[in-house]
């Protein structure tokens, strides 16, 4: 029999969870009711489904294959700046997709640095549009994620193993077979599956670098059916398809999905005695250099061009920036209310509930929810009027699984450590939050709020469905500038957006830690 545990926010927690499920289910019912099943799927729809799966598979495979040697190099080398580099590997998570795309265009685009070099060498130029561009951008975002997850795995190998390996004098090749292959066999499937699922629902990358009959994802097809043809029936049908694909992939992958850790702690390299000779060492240095270059050059390009572009930005950019800030603030607020109530409920229950909710967040695509709510709102009200609130809400829902993974373990520990003391004192309800839970969780709340704010301010998804000319967020305004070939102004907006995303994250994260007095 379980002991009498502290009840933190059971009722509000269940209500919040029910609200989340209702919001997603309402959207789902709306798209199902509007979907035009009669015509079935066209050849173009099938092409979109095939392309979605193919690009996601390629992105996942390439990200993981490249991440393996990089993670190994990071795991076995000590050098100055290693800590910074490992921290930077987490940065793509809060980096607005459209900013990264602009940076990738500056490096790999038609008049980019790489093509400049190729032209100088007399080689034919490469195109960043289409499949290769979509995969390139997905690798840019997911190589760091895969590297982090693999690095975490590498650090679970006990130091004693390496000591033993050094004593019997294993060669690097034997070391790989005996110690590292078994480890990779454990982690690689989960990491690949995670990236595959993430890439299935990616929208902004396909919007900017894909398109056309050969490079349209389902998510992009929803947007096009919606925006260009205003064919709600077809958009709805595609949304159902998207949910089936992403949902079944997420369900199939659930049992191998890794626990995506966010902590930056315990990434101290273990002492190793292998791979000390020149060749492996040189190889590791080259690998780490290449990976850092791949990550940092596009960002550097954004900063360089952005400074020039800042002066050429039209006023609409500043208006959009203001609206983006409001959306981000709204998302943070909504997220904290929902996530904290849900965490309060989940943390006092047996384990296992978090995964189900994370699954919901992974498989429900933002555009599906957006399409559904558009269908619900449209008969009553001009959806454009609600574009910003709906964007804030959908962004909060997208951040929810991550926020829960950050908040629940800390809350669980707090209840474990201080639940009885609080009960003895009769500290309950809002006083429990005020005096015990919020102060104990301040760093995690700040971190979750920072992630949500940065994700929300940089999100280019639902807003593209709902917005009209007056109501646009900064990422959408930037996309419009790119579409109008005003690249300098777009670069300025990109720098502004990058600064905003980083500032929001930094302020929230620092604020939380400051409140906790650490």
């Amino acid at each position: 029999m379980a002991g009498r545990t502290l009840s933190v926010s059971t009722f509000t927690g269940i209500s919040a969870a029910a609200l989340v499920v209702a919001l997603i289910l309402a959207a789902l019912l709306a798209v199902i009711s509007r979907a035009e099943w009669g015509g079935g799927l066209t050849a173009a729809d099938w092409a979109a489904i095939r392309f979605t799966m193919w690009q996601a598979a390629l992105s996942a495979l390439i990200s993981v294959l490249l991440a393996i040697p990089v993670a190994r190099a990071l795991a076995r080398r000590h050098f100055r700046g290693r800590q910074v580099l490992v921290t930077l590997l987490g940065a793509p998570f809060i980096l607005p997709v459209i900013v990264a795309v602009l940076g990738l265009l500056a490096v790999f685009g038609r008049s980019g640095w790489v093509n400049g070099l190729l032209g100088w060498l007399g080689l034919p130029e490469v195109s960043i549009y289409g499949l290769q561009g979509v995969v390139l951008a997905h690798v840019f975002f997911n190589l760091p994620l895969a590297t982090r997850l693999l690095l975490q795995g590498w650090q679970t190998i006990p130091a004693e193993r390496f000591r033993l390996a050094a004593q019997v004098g294993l060669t690097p090749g034997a070391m790989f077979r005996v110690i590292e292959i078994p480890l990779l066999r454990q982690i690689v499937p989960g990491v690949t599956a995670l990236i595959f699922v993430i890439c299935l629902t990616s929208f902004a990358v396909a919007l900017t670098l894909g398109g056309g009959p050969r490079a349209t994802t389902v998510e992009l097809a929803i947007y096009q059916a919606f925006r260009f043809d205003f064919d709600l029936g077809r958009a709805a049908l595609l949304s159902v398809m998207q949910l089936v694909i992403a949902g079944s992939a997420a369900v199939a992958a659930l049992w191998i999905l890794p626990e995506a850790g966010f902590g930056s702690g315990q990434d101290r390299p273990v002492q190793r005695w292998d791979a000390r000779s020149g060749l492996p060492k040189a190889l590791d240095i080259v690998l780490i250099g290449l990976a850092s270059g791949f990550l940092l050059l596009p960002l550097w390009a954004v900063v360089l061009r952005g400074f020039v572009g800042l002066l050429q930005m039209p006023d609409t950019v500043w208006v959009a920036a203001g609206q983006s800030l409001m959306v981000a603030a709204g998302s943070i607020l909504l997220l904290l209310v929902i996530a904290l109530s849900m965490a309060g409920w989940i943390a006092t229950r047996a384990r296992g509930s978090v995964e189900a909710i994370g699954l919901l967040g992974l498989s429900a695509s933002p555009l599906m929810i957006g399409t559904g709510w558009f269908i619900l709102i449209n008969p009553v009200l001009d959806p454009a009027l609600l574009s910003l609130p709906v964007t804030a809400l959908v962004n909060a829902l997208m951040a929810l699984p991550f926020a829960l993974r950050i908040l629940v373990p800390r809350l669980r520990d707090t209840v474990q450590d201080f639940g009885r003391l609080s009960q003895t004192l009769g500290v309950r309800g809002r006083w429990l939050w005020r005096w015990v839970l919020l102060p104990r969780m301040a760093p995690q709340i700040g971190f979750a709020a920072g992630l949500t704010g940065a994700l929300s301010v940089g999100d280019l998804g639902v807003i593209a469905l709902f917005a009209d000319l007056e109501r646009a967020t900064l990422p959408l305004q930037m996309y419009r500038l790119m579409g109008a070939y005003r690249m300098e102004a777009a670069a300025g907006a990109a720098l502004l957006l990058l600064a905003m995303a980083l500032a929001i994250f930094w302020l929230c994260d620092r604020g939380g830690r400051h409140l906790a007095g650490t």
Partner: protein
Amino acid sequence: MLALEKGLIVQGDFRLEAEMRLEPGRRYAVIGPSGAGKSTLLAALCGFLPLARGRLTWEGRDITDAAPGERPMTMLFQDNNLFPHLTVTQNVGLGVRPDMRLSAEDRARVASALERVGLTKHADKRPGALSGGQQSRAALARVLVQGRPLVLLDEPFAALGPALRNEMLDLVQALVSETGASLVMVTHAPDDVRRIAQEVIYVADGRAESPVPAADLLDNPPPALREYLG
């Protein structure tokens, strides 16, 4: 008087039967082998574990299902007796009012409790800045302002050195005799029993025995206890 009638505590495969009456102003030691259920007994008295059977009354009033904060007792645990993010004053203040809305009178009570345990100088520090002994004093100051008729100790001083532990036990003894509270303390040490307890609750083999006078029991222990004491 706190009375546990025909009590049964079940935790997984573990079962503990208990029957006892605790008189006001007495000091009880709970002794018995490791894993016999001493902490479990205290947790059940305090309301952290529900009784599978039986009845708990305080001065004739049934409190079997009362929430821990609504029982006439307070407990010091083995650890986590203070909130690390609050100052000593705030920690003690929570014992006066769980919503921390302290009147001037409440504040004076907190200050005098801190003075009583000798922590006035450390009132604005957080527990992390205090030594182990000072942390124990802060927790005792909180127990003092809570003013509950029963104080339960689940080995809160186990991590302290012998001299400091005796000092704390003496302080506890002084405090409960000032407030007239009953004391129920888990211990492993016969010396603690002689030092502080008037009666002993012996817990072994799935039973918590009714309290018996400490001196009698220690001078003339039953075979099982003799074996345990060595």
